Each structure stands twice: as C-alpha cells, then as structure tokens.
C-alpha cells in the first residue's frame, strides 16, 4: 500500500505543485543513476566482444553471447550443472529453514516458552559470529566426512545462515495474528496442527512468503561457502559466473551475459514481491 490515500512525507518543500514535480524528477534521476551499471551490463551482454572491450557499438546487438555462455565445453562447469545445483541447494535449504522456523516461531510468539526473549537473542546472536570463526572446523570435518564438493554441505550451511532471520521474521508475523482467533480455536479443541493450518498460516502467509523469498535471495547469491567448500561437480551459479572471467582474450560481453543469466531468477522474484519485502524487512516493528 504505497501512499494510497496519503500525501506522503512532508519535507517542507513538497506542498507547492512545482516542488512536487521537482521531487518526482529527482526520484527519476536517482533511479536512473542507480540502475545505470546494471543497464550498461545488460547492453554489453548483447554486444560483440570487440565492441564490449572498446565500449563502442559498431557491430550491432545480438543474443549470440547468451548462446556462447550456455554452450558447455568439456571439462568446464556448464550452465546446466551450476543452475541445477543452485536450484537444488536453494530450494532444499529454504524448505528446511521454513519447516524449522515455523514451529520455532510458534513457540516464541503464540504460546511463548519461558524466557522466549533469551532464545530469540540466541538465534540472532549467531549472526554476529563471524563466518571465519567457525569455517576451519567446518572445513576440517567436512573433509573428514567427505562432504567437500557436495550439495549437502552447502544445504547445511545455508540453513544455518538463514534460520535466525527466518525465525525472527516469522515470529513477528505470528504476533500479528489476532489472539481471539487462536483462543477461539483452543476452546473449540482444535489440534495444534489444525490451528496452524486453518487459523495462523492463512493470516501470516504473506509474511511467510516474504521470509522465504529473502532466504532464497541470500542462498542463491551466497559466494564464500560456495567457492571454498564446493568445487567440481557440485558448484553453484557464482562459481559459473566467475568462470567467465578470462585472462586470455576478450571476455566482457560473455561475462555480462553470464551475470544477467545468474541474477535473473532472483531479480524477477524480488521485483514481484517488493511490496511484501517492505513489510517483511521491517520485521514486525510495525505494529
């Protein structure tokens, strides 16, 4: 609900018509400026390599670079492999995150455990622990258990990086479920699972969707673990993108095309869900 029926923030200059137009224009200029690097990369991805390196446009635009990067070469990580790996890792980890986060949020919001605040702090405090503080034991044990270069290790770690945020956000959406509805269901003797399914989830669904989307974004874009713990057959999209940086010959147009392909799924999802993300990111600070 952006600005519906509201006149927006007062800046002190926004009251006159000319001022309104000027601020609208300013927003457009900033929007153009912010998107410029992406737009330029999109343009480059349609160019020939010579044009891309010289930043000129003599040879026209085509989709050829896209077909170049999607054709696999023997012994090089292919788009199909990386895409499948990313998809599996992201979907499996996000599903497990939500399966763990929903009951946990229930126990923190709707029928809170004693000391629920401490538990919530514990979850969010794990985000303060630098990744580097636990990476060597993880690396050493992953090596010991033959998990290096598998999707499994990435799934486990992506659950760990997303779970605290997911619990925190889901909890804030659960709090907004009207208490009377839950109590009514309680008195009617509705079981826990049915309560979740018929009362809580329908109300919290948009928030839960926004939470899951944020987990998908962070998992799809993750780079450090993907590079460090995962080579060979289980590599994900970030590895495929940097594989297009070449030290021999021109690569700028191909790299641009690869960048666009790698970012497209998450960008489209984010565009579609932007209004929900605005609500979700404020994590229930709105009451």
């Amino acid at each position, binding site marked *: 609900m952006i600005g519906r029926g509201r006149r927006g923030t007062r800046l002190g200059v926004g009251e006159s018509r000319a001022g309104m137009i000027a601020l609208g224009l300013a927003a457009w200029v900033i929007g153009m400026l912010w998107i410029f690097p992406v737009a330029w990369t999109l343009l480059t991805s349609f160019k020939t390599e010579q044009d891309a390196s010289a930043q000129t446009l003599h040879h026209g635009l085509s989709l050829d670079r896209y077909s170049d990067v999607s054709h696999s070469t023997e012994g090089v990580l292919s788009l199909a492999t990386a895409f499948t790996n990313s998809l599996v890792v992201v979907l499996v980890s996000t599903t497990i995150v939500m399966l763990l986060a929903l009951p946990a949020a229930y126990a923190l919001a709707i029928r809170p455990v004693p000391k629920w605040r401490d538990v919530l702090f514990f979850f969010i405090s794990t985000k303060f622990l630098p990744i580097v503080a636990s990476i060597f034991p993880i690396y050493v044990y992953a090596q010991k258990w033959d998990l290096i270069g598998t999707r499994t290790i990435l799934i486990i770690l992506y659950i760990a990086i997303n779970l605290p945020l997911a619990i925190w956000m889901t909890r804030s959406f659960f709090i907004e479920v009207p208490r009377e509805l839950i*109590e009514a269901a309680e008195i009617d003797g509705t079981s826990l699972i049915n309560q979740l399914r018929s009362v809580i989830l329908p109300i919290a669904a948009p928030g839960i969707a926004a939470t899951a989307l944020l987990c998908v974004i962070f998992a799809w874009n993750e780079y450090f673990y993907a590079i460090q713990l995962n080579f060979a057959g289980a590599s994900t999209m970030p590895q495929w993108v940097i594989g297009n940086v070449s030290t021999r010959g021109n690569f700028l147009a191909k790299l641009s095309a690869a960048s666009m392909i790698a970012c497209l799924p998450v960008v489209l999802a984010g565009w579609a869900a932007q209004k929900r993300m605005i609500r979700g990111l404020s994590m229930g600070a709105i009451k």
Partner: protein
Amino acid sequence: MTETTADAMLKVKGKVGDPFSSPWRRRLPLLPALVFMIAVTQLPFLVSIYYSFTNLKDKTQSLIPEPTKFVGIDNYRAIFDDPFFRQAMWTSVKMTVLAVVLSLVFGTLFAILLDRKFFGQGFVRTLLITPFLLMPVVAALIWKQQMFSSLFGILDKVLEFLGFSAVAFISDHPLASIVTVLVWQWTPFMMLIMLAGLQSQPSDIIEAAGVDGATPFGIFRQLTLPHLRRYLELGTLLGSIYIVQAFDAVDQMTGGGPGSTNIPYFVYQESIGGGFRYGSASAYAIVVVVFSIIIATFSLRVLSGLLKDEQRA
C-alpha cells in the same frame, strides 16, 4: 501482553491432563531449530577455541608435516605483534562504518522521495531495489570491469571526455571502490526498511498537527524523525551484521590489495586461502569474536529496546 493470555491458555490445556501440558510441550516445537543451530554454529566455535591453542596446520599442504601439539597462548601473543592484523581490523571498521552510514543516509533520502505520489513511482522503486537483488559477486564484477576498470571502464572514458585525466580507481582507491559497491547494493535495503517506517506513520496525528498549524518541516522533525528512530536502528543493526562480513567484493575487486584487506579476508588468507595455519588463524578468529561480542552486546541492547516497544504497542 503475551504472559497473561499464555497462562490462561495453559490452564485450558491443563484440563486435558496429558504429560506434555507442562512447559515442555511448549518447548518441543522450538527444539529442532535450537539443536540445529547449536550443532552447526556453536560446536564448531568450541572446536575453533581448541584449535587456537594448537599449531594445527593442513597436513596435505606441506611436504614435511609437523605433528600437531598444544602451544598454549603463543598464537594469541603473536596476534598483538602482528601489524597486518591491526591494519585489517582498522580496515574492517572503516569499511563497515562508511558503508552502513552512507547507505543509511541515501536509503532514508530515497525513501522520503519515494513515499509520495508521482508519475512512475512503482517503476522507480523497482529500479532502485534491483542492485540489492544482484549476486554480490556479480555486483563487484560489474563495477570492476565496466565502471572502474582502466581498460574498459566507463567512468574513465567519461572523465577523459570531460577533459580530466583518468583515475586508476581500484588500484589507487581500493577501499573507496569497495565501499562504493557496498553502498550501491545496501542503499536499496535501507530504503526498503525506511519505507516501511514512513508508511507505518499514523496519518491522523500528522493531519491533526497540520490542522493545529505546525509547519511541514516541524512535523518532519518532531513527529516523523522520532518515529523513524527504531527503523534507523534496525537498518544499522542488520546492515552491520551483513556488511562486516563482506568478503565477495574484496575477493573479486582487489584480492585484498593495499588497504582493503578486512578481517574476513585476512583470516581467510591465513587459513584456507593459502596459509593453511588453522591454529593461528583460529586464534585470530577468536579475537574477532571477542570484539564482535562487545559490539553485539551493544546492538542487542538496541534490539531489546525494539522488543519492548513492540510489547507496549
């Protein structure tokens, strides 16, 4: 609000008389998540503490493997003699503070611009959030190859066209280049949080103030800004959590070039990024954790304030 209704509910359930109607029944849904997080984050941390007192190295990386032995606090003593570590700490602080503050300022300004009706409002918002959705490694490569590069970069082409001399952005200003990319990506995130704040502002109070003759600027300063405070705090907190861990941009843009090695990249270089000295790298990591805990305690107090507000509401 939660305690009283929850107690009432407990009584209702208590009548059924099942063995799990105690607090354990409530704790049960929490356990899987709790156990998972302890196993994957806390146990490795404990192992890290143990490693930090040893001279553990990756055996496969050296020709004559040294036996692993207990070295006491030698690793910790070495840290305080290491100028590179101090430099990395300082770089981390500069990088995080600059990136968080700048993206918060830009994010707030953009949110104010977007929180009013104008032609193409939704479209402009879509343009602005896009950088946040990009893979950080792609964002770093776009800026490195297309904007900053002295070979193909568009910025130098523009500078030369305007009659200025070219700037070697990444090699001469590595930290500023990385901060630019971080700010470019995180401004939309801050903007989304601030938009949520602006939209949750109760319009009746503002209208009442307007009727009472308050100036628009007065309304902004005395009503909007205080209301935005907890959104600013939330943005600072979340932004710091993610930006202090920034690795992708450093790795891709400068590879830790002069003045741009932050703590994550430093510890990475000491260990799996080439040093393979897990023992001493663990000690570095533990010192970082101690610093993080100090900062986190402070931040959690902020969060705690957020929760109290929520309960009052």
